[in-house]
């Protein structure tokens, strides 16, 4: 089993507030890893470190066999230039809690713009790819709509198609359903389940326990800036080993 992401003692502080206090983490290629835990526990920050939207203070973080944000040349770490960082980010898809679609572009342009500008695809090729992906997320016929004309669930599905259009090796989801109305959560989770069944490597920060229980290959429980425990969903949800996890699960399931 090859590892898609490996973190060793990753630390990150904002001023004097330590958010990540030594994260040890690994996610296997082709598997779905769900990161769960209480708010403010560092889940989203850690996810954003994986594609270098946030910079880590110390420790090592590796995606595939490349270090995030750095390059080792003759035993010395060199910080990467913006252009090199951009090239690596292009291989990692990211889906945000607040969608972050480009409001001045139609759904189709949202999906085909980055393949044209970043990957250098021809417009025809990018358009074909975008149309296929939009159909796949159930949005055939909505190509010409601007984000404002779409529901939250539809916007998030466009955002997933936009990330997939880059043919990423890894997909990061940062609480993809937290900003959605309850009745729209299902349609987004369906798309994610499809993606998982096709063998996409996914790391998902989520509060959807049902999704984590049924779709995840690995559950990572993060609280107070460290990974408290991790394991298969069956083990974690039925027999959590730490008090912190038992306490958290007790609170989430009782509602």
């Amino acid at each position, binding site marked *: 089993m090859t590892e898609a992401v490996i973190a060793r003692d990753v630390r990150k502080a904002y001023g004097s507030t330590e958010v990540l206090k030594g994260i040890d983490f690994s996610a296997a290629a082709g598997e779905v890893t769900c990161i769960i835990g209480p708010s403010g526990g560092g889940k989203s920050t850690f996810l954003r470190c994986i*594609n270098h*939207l946030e910079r880590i203070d110390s420790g090592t973080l590796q995606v595939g066999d490349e270090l995030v944000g750095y390059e080792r040349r003759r035993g010395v770490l060199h910080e990467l230039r*913006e*252009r090199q960082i*951009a*090239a690596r*980010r*292009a*291989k*990692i*898809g*990211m889906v*945000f809690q*607040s969608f*972050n*679609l*480009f*409001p*001045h*572009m*139609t759904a189709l342009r949202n999906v085909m*713009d*980055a393949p044209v*500008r*970043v*990957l250098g695809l021809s417009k025809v090729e990018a358009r074909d790819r975008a149309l296929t992906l939009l159909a796949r997320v159930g949005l055939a016929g909505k190509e010409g709509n*601007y*984000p*404002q*004309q779409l529901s939250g669930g539809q916007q998030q599905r466009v955002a997933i198609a*936009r*990330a997939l259009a*880059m043919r990423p090796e890894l997909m990061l989801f940062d609480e993809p359903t937290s900003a959605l109305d309850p009745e729209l959560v299902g349609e987004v989770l369906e798309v994610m389940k499809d993606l998982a069944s096709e063998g996409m490597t996914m790391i998902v920060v989520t509060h959807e326990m049902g999704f984590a229980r049924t779709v995840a290959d690995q559950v990572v429980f993060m609280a107070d800036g460290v990974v408290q425990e991790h394991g298969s969903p069956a083990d974690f949800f039925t027999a959590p080993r730490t008090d912190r996890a038992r306490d958290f699960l007790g609170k989430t399931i009782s509602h």
Partner: protein
Amino acid sequence: MSEATATPERVVPVRHWGRLAAGVLAALALAALLWFFATNDNIRWSAVGRYLFGPTVLEGVWVTLQLTVLSMVIGVVLGVVLAVMRQSKNGVLRWVAGLYVWFFRGTPVLVQIVFWFNIALFVPTITIGGFSVSTNTIVTSFGAALLALALNEAAYMAEIIRAGITSIDRGQAEAASALGYTPLQTMTHIVLPQALRVIVPPTGNETINMLKTTSLVSVVAAQDLLTRVQEISARNYLVIELLIVASIWYIALTTVASVGQYYLERRLSRGYARGRKRLTAGDLLRGLLPIRTTERRPS
């Protein structure tokens, strides 16, 4: 509910007597003013008609238009550069841009015009690579006027553009970065096009202001509209008549600019305004007159 809707009751709206009285008073005042101007024997309206399209006046209008367009174009370009400098990670660039804005916003544009006109007093010649020219051949009165207006405008445009850039949600730049856009691509393809919506309305106002501010350059006789009508009235003493000629041109130009601004704003709201795509006569009127009614939307 169904009982109430079956027989609609008659409703008497509130009568606003105060509003009505104020409206009548305002209309009367306007009529009196128009009557006073139209029947004033001291104003020779025939002279106004004669000079309105006279060659000297038209030349002045052309110079005013050139000054407005050129100084706005230079101002916007320089403004973008200054705004990006102020966002820079390089502290020196940030500081220099800040100093520029501080200086040009802190001195009156009239002083700047006179300053540039007199620049030859302490920089008599300009030497570039062993090639020397007298400053006065480059900085003519038109050149001094353009330099002053453009450099001054750049300071204001820098602030407008900076406000536009910072108004865009950080998530937009993050999403672009996550897709692999370089910082430059993120700025030019994602942030600036969206910031335009915020930047264009005040820029339109700046353009309209600029049309009027150009009249200040008459102090250095830059051959703009006001300079030319003053030349004429210095000869024939028809001061008020020629000021009316100039005012008619200024108001015509600013009105045309307002209409252009309205259409530009409409075009930029693509993807933001829901529904209502077709242009109506009412839209046209709203564009023509500086009346902006607040849009009422059913909530």
